[in-house]
């Protein structure tokens, strides 16, 4: 309060900050990333709409890696542990995060689950985020790569409607391409939409239910893992 002239004005003092509002989440994400990289684990943040085929991609990934690399997963959903159970049946050691009403996973939730996962010998950790094309894009979890599953049934202009999610993607998995003969979908339109929201779009067409239907994804994933290992050593 100004006491000089009795005017009653308050003294306002500005404090310049310029701090990231999610700095705490980012700090926990950096901790997760360091912990996972030290163990040589390559971590994927798998995002996409509900029903885009995220769990099916991971089931097919487990089949492709059968008798090979050990996989682990953390599956986030508002309710049920169904996805984690599906992944466990596919041979992936899995934990479920039931977020209640939260529309995304954050780094603290992932950190908590990491303490309950047996990571011995694990080479790949898949974090299956809550099905949502908005909120999960905002939170760093400590992943090495952001992967977005986009099914061919979702509409050709989906990337233009959710630019932030696609701009942050390292790769887009175009799922359910085995349904294309039954649909009136022009893949060129999807590719063009992606090129307007992703600076350097990498798109891999998948058919998770078909034999060999995820080969392109497995090849991309193993190359990125090797690249990350070489960067460390």
């Amino acid at each position, binding site marked *: 309060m100004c006491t000089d002239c009795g005017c009653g004005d*308050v003294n306002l003092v500005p404090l310049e*900050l310029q701090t990231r509002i999610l700095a705490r989440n980012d700090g926990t994400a950096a901790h997760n990333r360091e912990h996972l990289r030290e163990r040589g684990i390559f971590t994927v943040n798998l995002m996409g709409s509900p029903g885009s085929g995220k769990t099916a991609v991971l089931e097919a990934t487990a089949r492709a890696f059968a008798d090979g690399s050990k996989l682990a997963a953390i599956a986030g959903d508002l309710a049920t542990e169904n996805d984690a159970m599906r992944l466990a049946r596919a041979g992936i050691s899995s934990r479920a995060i039931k977020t209640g009403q939260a529309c995304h996973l954050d780094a603290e939730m992932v950190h908590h689950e990491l303490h309950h996962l047996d990571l011995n010998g694990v080479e790949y950790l898949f974090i299956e985020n809550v099905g949502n094309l908005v909120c999960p894009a905002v939170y760093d979890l400590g992943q090495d790569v952001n992967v977005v599953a986009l099914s061919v049934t979702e509409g050709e202009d989906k990337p233009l409607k959710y630019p932030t999610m696609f701009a942050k993607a390292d790769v887009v998995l175009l799922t359910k391409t085995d349904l294309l003969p039954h649909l009136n979908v022009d893949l060129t339109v999807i590719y063009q939409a992606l090129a307007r929201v992703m600076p350097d779009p990498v798109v891999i067409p998948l058919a998770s239910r078909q034999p060999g239907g995820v080969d392109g994804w497995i090849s991309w994933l193993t190359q990125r893992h090797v690249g990350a290992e070489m960067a460390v050593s």
Partner: protein
Amino acid sequence: MHEYSIVQSLVDSVAAAVGSRQASVHEVRVAIGEMAGVDCGLLTTAYEVFRAGTLCEHAALTIDRIPARWHCPRCQMAIASGAFLRCAACNEPAQLASGDEIVLQRIELEVA
């Protein structure tokens, strides 16, 4: 709707900045980028609901919306949002120069 969780982090950040000062918060000013994935209308609503009972209770929220600006990392040429995100001259993928901010810029304190 993650704007409530952003507001929670915002109020925590303000509390950390105020620290042990004997002052009340008069204004909170944030920068939100167009590509940050945060809806300013929802952020304002969430702030109105969440600030009750916190040290931001009497603090106005001002949001500076930062437009997305893409450019070529080689020749610096601006590339419009919504266009193909590749430089027509250099063929380089565009880079986001600004527009992904979720930043607490400044607070104004009322000091007795």
